[in-house]
């Protein structure tokens, strides 16, 4: 009985030893024959992605970084799937390949991000600089344009936007800065072009203004008398006497002074060659003293009729009249309905110098446009 028990015990012992040896051999076999897990390469891919993100690839190289992350995730998913399998049947090939691709893509994303950010930085810096120059030009032109000109209304919103872009740029939010710049770039350039066009078109008459000025100077010399030139841009009334500049007075004009008078009620000061027809004082004028000029003259009537027949102005439009050089000025602003206003003191002096028949030329400017733009404040 005891011998049988002993024999059974030996069998159990043998089997136990066999099982333990089998387990040890299996572990050894698995360790030797199973594929090495892709830890290092996936770690390298993770680090490469982290580097790319640190270089803000999620902002400046979105597609490349997303591709790298997808590949890394694929490598991880494959690794997880294989980890659930028996070690002998694990295959990390896809994981390895995906992680390798993720490294390449992440490195590309980093390089691209650094390059794109540097380029964007430069683009924004240059754009802000160039748009500031354009706005400075518009601002300087704005200063010499009539107060109610549409350019004035269009400047402030874009100026605010540009300041916002600069603020975003300073806090390194280049994407926001670029988006704002792109949204105002066209508006500012268009505004600049429009402004330049307004003045360029207006200054096409510059040679004629210079000629009229010379004619007035010459007339005063020939007749040993007085002639007047009103320079709208400089807001000056020049008095020529015997061919020389005798006096100069500050003047104020009609609100819509930029350009010639087109019709009654446009509050523009006419341009051309006129003559003083009536001298008014006392009860004859509400503006202290006044010198009525012969507006509209024959040239004004011809131009008005041409505009009317061309359909540029209403068929019922009137040409207007009663344009004077009068007192009541000195308000520091263009305010008349088309007349030329002086202070009462200056009007006294001018009134004394002029007589019926004194020629008057009203011109846009005696200063060329480039000089005006360089020092608009001084000239005004």
């Amino acid at each position, binding site marked *: 009985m005891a011998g049988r028990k002993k024999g059974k015990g030996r069998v159990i012992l043998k089997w136990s030893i066999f099982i333990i040896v089998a387990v040890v051999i299996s572990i050894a076999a698995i360790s030797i024959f199973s594929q090495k897990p892709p830890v290092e390469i996936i770690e390298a891919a993770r680090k490469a992605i982290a580097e790319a993100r640190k270089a803000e690839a999620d902002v400046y190289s979105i597609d490349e970084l997303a591709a790298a992350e997808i590949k890394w995730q694929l490598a991880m998913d494959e*690794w997880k799937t294989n980890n659930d399998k028996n070690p002998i049947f694990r295959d990390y090939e896809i994981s390895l390949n995906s992680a390798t691709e993720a490294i390449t893509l992440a490195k590309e994303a980093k390089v691209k991000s650094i390059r794109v950010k540097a380029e964007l930085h430069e683009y924004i810096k240059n754009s802000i600089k160039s748009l500031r120059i354009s706005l400075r030009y518009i601002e300087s032109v704005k200063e010499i344009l009539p107060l109610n000109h549409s350019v004035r209304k269009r400047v402030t919103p874009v100026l605010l936007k540009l300041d916002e872009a600069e603020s975003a740029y300073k806090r390194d939010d280049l994407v926001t800065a670029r988006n704002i710049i792109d949204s105002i770039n066209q508006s500012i350039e268009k505004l600049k072009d429009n402004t330049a066009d307004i003045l360029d078109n207006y200054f096409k008459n510059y040679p004629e203004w210079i000629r009229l000025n010379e004619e007035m100077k010459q007339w005063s010399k020939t007749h040993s008398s007085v002639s007047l030139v009103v320079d709208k841009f400089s807001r000056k009334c020049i008095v020529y006497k015997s061919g020389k500049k005798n006096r100069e007075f500050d003047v104020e004009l009609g609100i819509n002074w930029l350009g010639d008078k087109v019709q009654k009620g446009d509050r523009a000061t006419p341009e051309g060659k006129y003559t003083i027809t009536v001298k008014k004082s006392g009860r004859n004028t509400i503006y202290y003293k006044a010198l009525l000029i012969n507006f509209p003259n024959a040239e004004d009537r011809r131009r008005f009729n041409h505009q009317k027949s061309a359909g540029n102005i209403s068929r019922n439009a009137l040409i207007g009249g009663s344009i004077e050089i009068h007192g009541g000025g000195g*308000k520091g602003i263009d305010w008349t309905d088309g007349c030329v206003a002086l202070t009462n003191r200056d009007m006294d002096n001018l009134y004394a110098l002029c007589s019926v028949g004194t020629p008057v030329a009203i011109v846009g400017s005696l200063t060329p446009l480039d000089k005006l733009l360089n020092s608009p404040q001084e000239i005004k």
Partner: protein
Amino acid sequence: MKKILFQIFAVVLFVALATSCSKPPQAELDAAKAAVESAKVMETNRYLADEFVALEDSLNAANVAIEAQKSKMFLSRDYKSIKEKLTVIATDVEALKARTEERKAQVRTEVQDTLVVLVALIDEDKALLAKAPKGKEGKAALEAIQNDITVLEASVSEINTLIANGDYLTAQDKTTASKVKAEAIKEELATAISKTKRR
């Protein structure tokens, strides 16, 4: 015999214990992931971008470490340090969220303070506009300035919407720009009024 059976039992017990102790820290991983996601919702990636990226990377590193352990033989798996790391990540994310809140509150306060100054400046501009010379001669000038003030008032409205939406950084850009313009208008009006007084 009993001794042998005891030894076998001990080996089986050890294996069972070793296996049961080596489960991946799924709960900690989920908690850390949820924490990172909640930080993203709070715009931590916008206000403290570098720190957020570092934490996201730490989470990825923990994921890699978990799979690395899973690849090992069950007897040699050890998730203890990973578990600790994940707990640290979750704690760090909470700290980062608190800092984000702080930063956001700081920017919000700055914006609101500047907005108060801006609104006061606009009111001053309006008051000066009311004092500016009226009548035929000043009408066009006043209209031009009023137009600028209207643009600023629209800007204030936009700023309030941005603040309500929690976009404090954009609101800050807008507030700073508008304040500069409001100050320029104030100066322009003050100069115009002083010129009138001199006359």
